[in-house]
């Protein structure tokens, strides 16, 4: 219908005319702003207003920033705590290793002191194996292949006698500990000079002084040293200390228990004596 068509055309013309006007106006504004800076005063005033708004809102912003920092810092602290725990674990393990290395160092220093004081031959030996069986007490040690070590040589540490070489194989040797039940050592009571034979009890660190008559003067605390009988073995190496003296039932002998001076189960390095030891190598107070 002509009326409807002209109305539609009229509406469209009106739209495009208005669009043209607005677009022209917008382009004019753009030119005015870029070439003439006509709107700068208004923009400056509005930027002040913008700053004012930001200043008023800044406490809220500070509060929200603080909240965020609080929660994120908590999470960070928890994370750092975990990391530190891990590091602490590693440090603890390292410290344990260090302390065992320190102990070893002290042992080696003692052995070195011993070696320096002695006129005789001493050769260092390091433990490479130990007995697992409760009925046998031995250590396997390694030493310098050129060392003139032979079966029967005494094995000592800074505290006293630990054992005796049983057999040799190139640079290793089997050491029977003095507390082994098959071991025996000729000893002398330091205080009185009384000589006897000390036997291993089969228990770690304990020895028995057998066949000592009740009348013999042996007390608790007496130090026993090697007697050097036959000049085959060194004299004066501390062996142990008497811990108890009891009368045996149905026997005329005393039951004397001796604790070893050396503790071979807790050390790794020993010295092997290949010659007679001088008198002042071991302190009598050991």
């Amino acid at each position, binding site marked *: 219908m002509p009326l409807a068509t002209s109305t539609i055309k009229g509406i469209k013309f009106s739209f495009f005319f208005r669009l043209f006007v*607005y677009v022209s*106006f917008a382009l004019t*504004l753009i030119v005015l702003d870029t070439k003439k800076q006509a709107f700068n005063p208004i923009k400056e005033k509005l930027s002040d207003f913008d700053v004012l708004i930001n200043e008023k809102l800044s406490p809220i912003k500070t509060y929200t920033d603080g909240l965020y920092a609080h929660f994120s810092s908590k999470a960070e602290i928890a994370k750092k705590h975990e990391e530190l725990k891990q590091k602490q674990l590693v440090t603890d393990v390292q410290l344990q290793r260090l302390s065992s290395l320190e102990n070893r160092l002290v042992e080696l220093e003692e052995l070195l002191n011993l070696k320096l004081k002695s006129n005789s031959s001493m050769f260092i030996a390091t433990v490479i194996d130990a007995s697992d069986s409760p009925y046998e007490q031995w250590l396997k040690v390694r030493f310098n292949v050129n060392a003139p070590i032979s079966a029967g040589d005494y094995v000592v540490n800074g505290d006293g006698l630990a054992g005796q070489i049983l057999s040799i194989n190139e640079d290793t040797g089997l050491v029977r500990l003095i507390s082994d039940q098959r071991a025996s050592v000729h000893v002398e009571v330091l205080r009185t000079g009384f000589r006897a034979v000390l036997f291993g009890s089969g228990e770690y660190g304990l020895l028995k002084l057998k066949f000592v008559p009740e009348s013999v003067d042996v007390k608790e605390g007496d130090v026993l040293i090697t007697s050097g009988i036959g000049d085959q073995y060194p004299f004066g190496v501390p062996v142990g200390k008497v811990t108890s003296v009891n009368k045996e039932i149905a026997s005329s002998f005393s039951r004397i228990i001796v604790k070893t001076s050396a503790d071979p189960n807790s050390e790794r390095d020993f010295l092997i004596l290949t010659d007679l030891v001088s008198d002042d190598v071991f302190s009598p107070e050991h």
Partner: protein
Amino acid sequence: MTVYRTNITTKKIFFSISFGMILSIFGLSGVSLIISPDVLGLVLFYWAMVGGDARPKLGTAFVLGCFVDILSGQIVGLHSLKYLLLVLVSMQFDNRFRMSTPLHKITFVMITFFLVELLLSGLLSLYMSMPLFTERLIAAGVWGLIWPLMGFLIQKDYSRVVVK
């Protein structure tokens, strides 16, 4: 039979446009101004496409554009021109747009915004010797991807009409 109906009210249009204007003026936190979306432009284009009789008019688009330019400290008239072009596009394609698939709608929006941004940036670059930011052109197109989200947020209405 139950029919879902959407309720377009001037109040809804007013609030969505106000929200869009605030975001356009102050920008999104953490997003560079160069690639920041023109939220008001998207809202305006949305209502121009689906508003029907309640769609924003040329005058409204012009005034809103001026507001955004002045309040955000940009070149006055630039956003006005942009919104006028968006209203023009909506007048030509609104019927076909309403009947097309969501994927076509998103593609159309992305291309429209990209071309409008290209036109304006080219105009400024040629006549005002201003640099052309390619990131802005790409961002203008990419922000069209939030079109379905806008439809969900703006026009979500749980009212139901039961037709017997």
